[in-house]
C-alpha cells in the first residue's frame, strides 16, 4: 500500500490560519456529528458504531474503544469520561497539534463520547506544560458553550454536559490512566492496582473511561461517515487514520497523517524527506515512542500498525517515530532513556524504583568505559526481574526497550566493554 494522494481527515483543517475557531470548524462540516448523535442516535447506538468501526485507542495500548465504552455500566448513575491530554511519551507530539490546530474536533469527539457513556461532567486532563494548548482549548469550550453545545440542554436535546479542563503539574506517570485519576483527585499521581478497572471504580470511585486525544478526534468521523466507511481505511483490525510523529535524523520531522499500515520506509523516505545527512545512513528506528523495542535498520521493512509492529517484536505505542542515523551511540541513547524512566518512576514498586536506578548506573559505567562483560547480562537480567512484576506498565515500558537495545546491538555494548569506547562515529548535528 502506498499512501500517496491521501487526503487528511484528522488534520484537514490544520493548515488554515483560523483553524481553531468555531466558524472555521463549522465551515468544514463541524458539529454535524454531534447533532446527529444527540438527535438521531441512542448512546448505545453510538457505542455500537464505534465498535463496528474497529477504532483502537491511540494512547499506546491499542485497546478497542467501543469495547472499552461498552464496559461502562448502563443507567443514569454518576459516571465519567476523562480525556487524556497528558501527552508525555518521549517522541510524541500529535495530541498537542490536534488541540492547538483543531480544538473543536477534539471537543466534538469528547462531547459525543460523554453522551455515549452517559457522562454529565467530563474532565480534560491537560499536561501541565501545555499552557498554549490549554488556552486554545479553553477558548473553544467557551465558544461551544455560547453556541449551546456545552452545559445544560445541549442543542435543545435535554443532554447536559459540563466540561472542566484540569491542569497537571509535570509527571510522566500521570499519563497512565489510574495515576491520572489519582492526580485528578488532587493527589500524588501514584498508579492504582488493577482490578478494579476504571470502568468499575474510577474517578471519585465511579465508573470512568479514560481516552486519548487522538482516539477521541476520530469519533466525529465515525459518526458522520459511518463505521463501514471508516473501517475501510487502513488494514483489517487496524482501521482508520493515524498521526505519526517523526523526529530525529530526518530532513522533515513533523506529524504526518496516513491510514494505519503505511510502510515505515515510505513514511521516512518519501514523506519525512529521508535521512538528514547524505553520508549518515539509517541505524535504527524507535517506532512507537520511547517505551517500545527498537528496530535496527535491517528490520525497518514493516507496516506501521498495531499488529504488524507486534509481529515484528515491537509496538505502535504512541506512534512516536524516533529516527537515528549512524552517528548515534546506542549505549548513550539508552542511557538517555534510562535516566528518563528513573526520573519518572513513581517509586511504589521496588523492581521499577530500584531497577531503573540500576540501569542508569550500569549504563553510565559502560559509557565511561568502566563496564565489564557481565554488565550486559545484568541489564537483561534486570529486565526479566522488572517485567510483569510491577503495579503499572511503566516497568515494562523500560524493561522491554532495554532488553531490545542490548539484544539487537550487543556488539556495540560489547565494544564499550572491550575497547572502553564507542563504536559509533559521533557527528553532532550542527546547531
Amino acid at each position, binding site marked *: 500500500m502506498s499512501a500517496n494522494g491521501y487526503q487528511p481527515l484528522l488534520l484537514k483543517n490544520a493548515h488554515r490560519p483560523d483553524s481553531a475557531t468555531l466558524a472555521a470548524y463549522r465551515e468544514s462540516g463541524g458539529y454535524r456529528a454531534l447533532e446527529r448523535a444527540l438527535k438521531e442516535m441512542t448512546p448505545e447506538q453510538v457505542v455500537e458504531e464505534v465498535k463496528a468501526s474497529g477504532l483502537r485507542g491511540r494512547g499506546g495500548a491499542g485497546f478497542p474503544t467501543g469495547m472499552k465504552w461498552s464496559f461502562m455500566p448502563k443507567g443514569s448513575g454518576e459516571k465519567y469520561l476523562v480525556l487524556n491530554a497528558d501527552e508525555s511519551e518521549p517522541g510524541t507530539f500529535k495530541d498537542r497539534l490536534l488541540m492547538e490546530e483543531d480544538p473543536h474536533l477534539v471537543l466534538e469527539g469528547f462531547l459525543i463520547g460523554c453522551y455515549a457513556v452517559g457522562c454529565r461532567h467530563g474532565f480534560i486532563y491537560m499536561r501541565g506544560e501545555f499552557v498554549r494548548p490549554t488556552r486554545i482549548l479553553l477558548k473553544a469550550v467557551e465558544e461551544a458553550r455560547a453556541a449551546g453545545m456545552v452545559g445544560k440542554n445541549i442543542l435543545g436535546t435535554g443532554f447536559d454536559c459540563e466540561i472542566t479542563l484540569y491542569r497537571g503539574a509535570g509527571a510522566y506517570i500521570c499519563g497512565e490512566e489510574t495515576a491520572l485519576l489519582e492526580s485528578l483527585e488532587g493527589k500524588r499521581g501514584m498508579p492504582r492496582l488493577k482490578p478494579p478497572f476504571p470502568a468499575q471504580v474510577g474517578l471519585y470511585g465511579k465508573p470512568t473511561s479514560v481516552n486519548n486525544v487522538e482516539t477521541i478526534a476520530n469519533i466525529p468521523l465515525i459518526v458522520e461517515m459511518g463505521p463501514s466507511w471508516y473501517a475501510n481505511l487502513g488494514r483489517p483490525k487496524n482501521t482508520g487514520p493515524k498521526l505519526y510523529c517523526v523526529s530525529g535524523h530526518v530532513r522533515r520531522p513533523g506529524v504526518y497523517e496516513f491510514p494505519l499500515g503505511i510502510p515505515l520506509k515510505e513514511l521516512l523516505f518519501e514523506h519525512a524527506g529521508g535521512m538528514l545527512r547524505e553520508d549518515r545512513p539509517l541505524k535504527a528506528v*524507535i517506532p512507537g515512542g520511547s517505551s517500545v523495542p527498537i528496530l535496527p535498520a535491517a528490520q525497518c521493512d514493516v507496516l506501521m500498525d498495531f499488529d504488524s509492529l507486534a509481529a515484528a517484536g515491537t509496538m505502535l505505542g504512541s506512534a512516536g517515530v524516533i529516527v537515528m542515523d549512524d552517528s548515534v551511540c546506542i549505549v548513550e541513547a539508552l542511557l538517555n532513556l534510562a535516566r528518563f524512566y528513573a526520573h519518572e518512576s513513581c517509586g511504589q514498586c521496588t523492581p521499577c524504583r530500584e531497577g531503573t536506578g540500576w540501569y542508569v548506573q550500569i549504563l553510565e559505567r559502560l559509557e565511561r568505559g568502566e563496564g565489564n562483560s557481565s554488565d550486559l547480562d545484568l541489564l537483561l537480567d534486570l529486565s526479566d526481574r522488572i517485567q510483569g512484576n510491577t503495579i503499572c506498565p511503566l516497568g515494562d515500558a523500560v524493561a522491554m526497550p532495554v532488553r531490545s537495545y542490548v539484544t539487537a546491538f550487543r556488539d556495540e555494548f560489547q565494544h564499550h566493554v572491550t575497547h572502553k569506547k564507542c563504536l559509533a562515529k559521533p557527528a553532532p548535528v550542527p546547531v
Partner: protein
Amino acid sequence: MIPSRETQEKIDAAVREYPHARSALLAVLHLIQSERGYIAPEDQAWAATRMGLPPAEVAGVVSFYTLFRTKPPGRHHLQVCRTLSCQIRGCRELLSYLEEKLGIKQGQVTTDGRFSLVTVECLGSCGTAPMMQVNDDYHENLTRERLDVLLDSMK
C-alpha cells in the same frame, strides 16, 4: 505570603468547579505559584488550611510534581529539553552554550535574577528539536544564533 484577593477569588472558583474540593489542590498550587513565582513553606501551610488538608499531604503533592518550585526562579525560567529526540538534534551543545553565555550551571539562577536554567524531560515538541520552554512559551528549532536573539529580547 497570603495570596492577593484576586488570586483568592480564582482559588474559590477553582474549588467550585469540582464535585470534590480536593481535586482543586493542583489548581490552588498553580495559582499560588503564578502569583509568587514559587511555593514557599508558608504558602503550603496556607493551602493546607484553605483546603482542609494536613500540611504533609500538601507537601507530598508539591514534591511529587516537577512544575511546582520551592525556590524562586529567574524572571526568565529556561527549561531545556534533554530527552532523546532533542539530544540527537543537539540539545547538549545548546545547554553548554547557555551555561557558558549565562555563566551559570543548570539548576542555578543568574545573580541579577534575570535567568534560571534547568533541564526537563520531553516536552512533546520533538519534531522541532532542539527546543526549550521559557516560562509558559515554547521555543523550537533552536540554534546558537536564535538563542542569542531570544536572550537579548528577554530583559
